[in-house]
């Protein structure tokens, strides 16, 4: 079997795009885990709710497929911001109403509550959009969706597809990641977050409002998930109430792989998982004939278990002893 470079590059591009999306979700897991040591099982569903809100927002404008491009751009921006705000506030309220009350309970209690919330949100998703796959309103016309930068814009003679859509995903993700990095490493709020993550008690004694700092982490994580929800809905052109489950599991694996609690780790893990995902979906078939997209969850799960066995601290995480 000869190594097919065209195919490889194709799935590399897909993997990086997917990876950027997973990184956005993984950051929400890692941010919250880093500060309160809670696996927020509802995070995948917060992402799903963001996607649903984006669809509803775009649908509310009732835009026709042939609208001028500036209208489409404006509506997209409004829907993106709406989804981010909605998911952010949703995640924040979940913390406010549920997790905060369980903060001094044993670890099992918030975990069980989190899985409960994830289920409630899935139920709300069914009430909202039904239990079948939802097609987003035709905001981006099909011919725009299929623009290939390499052949259509650069005039290259290649069979590799690098769509403007792929580029848009990456271009949307980078400022979000940069913004988060700025928030955490260059603002007072970020400093407070890092302090609370290190030692909640000591941070409180230094005059940091611990509850507010934790709430901010939930808000920021939710905002990123909402952005990811909007992007995924329009990038894959589908949405479903269960979409949060798989993306959530993949993103959590990414967070663990990168070292949970570590922001750079989440991005690195996201990219790796994105690549594993796309390669398993399409490229691996060239070597293992019976392999296909249906085995991707198995592959990602394998990664999760292997990381936990051989490097539980992740690639960039440091060994943190469990607080007794």
């Amino acid at each position, binding site marked *: 079997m000869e190594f097919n470079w065209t195919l490889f590059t194709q799935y590399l591009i897909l993997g990086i795009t997917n990876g950027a999306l997973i990184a956005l979700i993984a950051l929400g897991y890692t941010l919250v885990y880093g500060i309160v040591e809670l696996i927020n099982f509802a995070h995948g569903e917060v992402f799903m709710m963001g996607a649903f809100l984006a669809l509803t927002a775009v649908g509310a404008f009732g835009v026709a497929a042939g609208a001028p491009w500036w209208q489409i751009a404006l509506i997209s921006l409004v829907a993106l911001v709406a989804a981010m705000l909605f998911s952010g506030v949703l995640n924040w309220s979940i913390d406010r109403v549920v997790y905060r009350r369980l903060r001094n309970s044993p670890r099992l209690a918030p975990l069980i509550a989190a899985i409960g919330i994830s289920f409630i949100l899935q139920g*709300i998703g069914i009430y909202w959009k039904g239990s079948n796959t939802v097609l987003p309103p035709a905001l981006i016309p099909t011919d725009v969706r299929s623009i290939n930068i390499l052949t259509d814009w650069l005039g290259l003679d290649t069979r590799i597809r690098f769509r403007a859509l792929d580029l848009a995903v990456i271009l949307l993700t980078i400022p979000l990641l940069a913004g988060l990095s700025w928030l955490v490493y260059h603002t007072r709020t970020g400093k407070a977050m890092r302090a609370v993550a290190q030692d909640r008690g000591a941070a409180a004694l230094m005059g940091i409002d611990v509850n507010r700092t934790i709430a901010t982490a939930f808000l920021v994580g939710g905002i990123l998930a909402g952005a990811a929800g909007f992007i995924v809905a329009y990038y894959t052109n589908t949405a479903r109430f269960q979409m949060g489950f798989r993306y959530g599991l993949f993103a959590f694996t990414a967070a663990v792989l990168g070292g949970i609690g570590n922001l750079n780790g989440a991005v690195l893990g996201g990219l790796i998982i994105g690549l594993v995902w796309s390669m398993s979906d399409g490229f691996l078939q060239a070597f293992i004939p019976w392999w296909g997209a249906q085995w991707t969850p198995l592959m990602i799960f394998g990664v999760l278990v292997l990381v936990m066995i051989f490097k539980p601290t992740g690639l960039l995480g440091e060994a943190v002893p469990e607080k007794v």
Partner: protein
Amino acid sequence: MANLARAQTIGGSSAPAYETAPRSRGELARFAIAIVFLFAFPFIDQALGLRLMGALLPIGIYCILAMGLNIVVGYAGLLDLGYAAFFAIGAYTVGFLTSPGSVFVRGGWIPPFFQQFWPALVVAFIVAAIFGILLGAPTLRLRGDYLAIVTLGFGEIVPNFFLNAVPLTGGTRGINPIAKPPSLGPLSFGQTDQRNWYWLILVIGMFSIFIILRMYNSRLGRSWQAIREDELAAASMGINPTRTKLWAFALGASFSGFAGSLYSAAFQYVHPSQFEFTLSILVLSAVILGGIGNVYGAVAGAVIIGSFDRILAERLTQPLNAFGQQIGNDFLASHNVGEDRYVVFGLALVLMMLLRPGGLFPNKQRAAELQPEELDITVQEQQDLFDVRQHDDETPGVRGGQVA
């Protein structure tokens, strides 16, 4: 008598009174009445025309599942979110062993002895335990919440595997038929013998309760409680935490596998969609709702949640739709109550954790543990420290530390 029982409890020579078989005469009488009622229920059902037997089989299976998960979550304090995976493994093991259509049987790899129901059931029990150990051994050494996510993933990929490994499992066609238990005298166990199946599951369920209670008060059961309450202290007392947790995890898994094989035989059919994530959460919410760490509570929770899932959801939809049509409400007119299961299970989990962490029928010891800590050095306390300072400034009559 009562005093003596209490004295024994305090002395520690006997097990705590809330998680044992009934002791006093009154309790025994109530217990006997309950058992007679349960055994007579098929006749009551027939006399009243309730037609509940079809729903009671899955509910009975849920009860056995809840008992098993109670070992993992309630006794050992480990969160297993992929419990349905072991259920699937048990069901498919029996399918592989006993179905004439399975690859293994056609290949002639299965000795005839194991193509019978009861031996296959034992194999399923063991296979599920082995998978429990394979999954638990690497993850139980890590922190508790990692186990939750690994089991979540396992619960996702096992049905996914059975769905896609078409040559082995037949994919969406499922496996059919499956060996029935041999007839016991006049009682046969065909697909239509719901009543006999009900009694069989009832007997197995009661036997399971007996075993679990014995286990809870054994050395192993005490170790689970010790680990759950304070792992560090238990470890320093010579209990091996990993091995103890692994026992709980494997036993829970084997209970699930056992229930899965019963389920597959009762319905003569194994299909990947029977083992979705929702089932894991259904059982979890049954255990949490009923009473975490209390076998009877777990069973009660399974009956409540199961009744919603198998009886209410099916019987309520039509009247609700008719009502919705009458009052002209589109939502009610087309609403399927089965879709509410997500919100119902979710609410059961969240509300229980917020309002009554011990469940409806709590194990006192477990409920006390699940209450938020108050004496530890927590944020709350530190917040109070600030409050005291602020309070000092504002209290009339106290200025600058001097009492006026």
